[in-house]
């Protein structure tokens, strides 16, 4: 690409960072409030191909060493482009911008941060239009389904602020859509072996409907981590054949379990606490425990001080749960798993939960069915299993009343 642009362009510049002492100007970053980038799919008529516009001052009109607002709008059109591709195309801004010699781009959405190196400015990369030309070149040469593309760089602070709420709405809608992804929609899950130093037979599985036990790695984090470091502790798992859609048994997970557990177990139910439950490291955020007196479950999180309804504290239960074994009726979980539509689905899901610390009950109020919320006991209602059983009868908990049918 030598000669086409004022500076060189290519993947070799990807890891290059630009220090404060070396930048000519920076856009976005911690000192700038107004910033975003957004790719939008438009109709063919709406996009003027290769149009590059700068709204507000361009680089030569900015003071050297300063930090400035920036909104990047990229509009694309093409008969084969689907709405769902917008975020994928948007991530390419990060990739392509970092291909530019002496240009550095970090993060995404309304968190972006960019720096232009003094040397590249001197070489002639002295207008956002030049950046736009390079981006358009890379987009059209790497993604053939883009038939038309235009970019707008907004540096006028007021105009960036005007547009920002619209961008935030788009990001929010995307997140909502992602939250709706089901295990049925994907072919790959992700496994994490980070905790094997504590529990050598434990392997964690993250699916779109099951967050890893520690709560820190969801399916999207797994995907990102695997892409970043394919040899690392997070690996891709082909889910294979779904052997039991209710309990969440997949041939791919079973095969993984054999290898990663050093043959200590060969079947895993992702969504049941019985028979072949998912193992627990030592790092889980909470424990889902079976209460025989009620034939139901309690949940306790790590920060809960004092005894649970089982007369023992979290730490005692953690000792019984952890270590990478399959312990029936004792499951280390991430709290966010409570929001999953598949949460212990084989065992009755949230409708089989009868006790939680008040803090957790309140935090997950909107995830709890309305007819259930008041019927789950907390440490303020009961202190032992006998009191719990009385409480459940008194309030008419749907599980105790026999109103909950297990899926078959």
């Amino acid at each position, binding site marked *: 690409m030598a000669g086409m642009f004022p500076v060189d362009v290519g993947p070799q510049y990807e*890891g*290059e*960072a630009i*220090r*404060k*002492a070396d930048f000519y100007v920076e856009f976005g*970053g*911690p000192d700038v409030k107004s910033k975003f980038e957004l790719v939008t799919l438009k109709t063919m008529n709406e996009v003027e191909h290769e149009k590059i516009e700068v709204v507000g001052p361009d680089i030569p009109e900015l003071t050297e060493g300063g930090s400035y607002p920036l909104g990047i709008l990229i509009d694309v059109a093409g008969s084969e482009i689907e709405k769902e591709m917008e*975020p994928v195309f948007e991530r390419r801004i990060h990739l392509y911008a970092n291909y530019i010699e002496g240009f550095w781009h*970090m*993060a*995404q*959405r309304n*968190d972006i*941060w960019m720096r232009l190196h003094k040397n590249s400015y001197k070489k002639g990369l002295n207008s956002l239009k030049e950046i736009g030309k390079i981006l358009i070149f890379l987009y059209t040469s790497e993604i053939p389904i883009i038939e038309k593309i235009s970019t707008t760089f907004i540096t006028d602070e007021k105009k960036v602020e005007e547009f920002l709420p619209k961008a935030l709405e788009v*990001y929010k809608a*995307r*997140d909502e859509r*992602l*939250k709706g992804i089901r295990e049925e929609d994907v072919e790959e899950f992700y496994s*994490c072996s*980070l*905790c094997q130093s*504590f529990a050598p037979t434990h392997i964690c599985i993250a699916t779109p409907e099951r967050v*890893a036990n*520690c*709560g*820190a*790695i*969801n399916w*999207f*984090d797994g*995907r*990102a*981590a695997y892409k*970043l*470091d394919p040899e690392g*502790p997070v690996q891709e798992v082909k889910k294979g054949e779904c052997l039991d859609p209710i309990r969440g048994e997949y041939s791919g997970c079973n095969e993984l379990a054999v290898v990663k557990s050093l043959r200590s177990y060969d079947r895993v139910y992702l969504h049941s606490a019985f028979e072949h439950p998912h193992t627990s*490291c*030592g*790092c*889980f*955020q909470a424990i889902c425990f079976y209460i025989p007196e009620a034939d139901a479950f309690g949940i306790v999180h*790590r*920060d809960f001080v004092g005894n649970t309804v089982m007369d023992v504290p979290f730490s005692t239960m953690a000792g019984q749960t952890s270590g990478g074994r399959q312990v029936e009726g004792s499951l280390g979980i991430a*709290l*966010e798993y409570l*929001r999953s539509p598949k949460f212990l689905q084989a065992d009755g899901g949230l409708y089989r939960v009868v006790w939680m610390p008040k803090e957790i009950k309140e*935090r997950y109020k909107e995830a709890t069915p309305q007819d259930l919320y008041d019927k789950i006991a907390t440490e303020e209602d009961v202190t032992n299993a006998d009191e719990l059983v009385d409480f459940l009868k008194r309030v008419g908990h749907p599980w105790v009343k026999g109103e909950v049918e297990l899926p078959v």
Partner: protein
Amino acid sequence: MTTVAVAGKGGVGKTVIAALLIKALSEKGVVLAIDADPSTNLNLALGLPLTETVGRVREDLTEDITKGSLPTGVSKQELLDMKIREALVESARIDLLAMGRPEGPGCYCAANHMLRLSIDQLAKSYDYTVIDCEAGMEHISRRTTRDIDILLIISDPTIRGVTAAARMKELMKELRTRTGKIYLAVNRVKDGLPKEIGEAINKSGLNLIAIIPEDPNIAPLEVKGAPLVELPPDSPLQSGVREIVTKLGL
């Protein structure tokens, strides 16, 4: 790209030596300074401001995870990369990253792993990385900081100091981190190294790289709260650090 960790028990002048080393290396290249000892304030020694610490970043991330308030479509690794970058204090030739306090209860395996990736990525763009470690070397044992090429242990001319230095050397072996070379510098020496100390060093198998006399110019700077890197060039500590840089071939 060379990574040097400076370690030693309290009161041996570890942080001032780290600061002078950072300053000396900044004349040869750009330096990433990592303050991994929450009790010593490397930033003050360097005369740099302090904003955010990595510890705070990790706590905030863990809290956001617990609250479930993170955006689904942005990976935590990427968020962390950004936050680490934001926590960096940038100056002309030296950038500083403060690790802050070690973690509280709960699980930080994933968070620490992501931190390590972020910091490794960050360090790639520097000629030198210098880590000012606390005595227990928490960040090295938890692998939140990168593998090191040179471990420089600082001691005072006391048996306790040399014993502590020997223990740190053993600790590094036990941790099985990839450490290149390990050296000892004895600081605050008055009228030559006592014979008993020399013998103890020989016995410990530590590789002695420099003997630095007690520096009379430190106290006036400390009283004023002035950056310790402002020590006069002919000061014993400055000469000692220059000697170390030369001997290490940095």
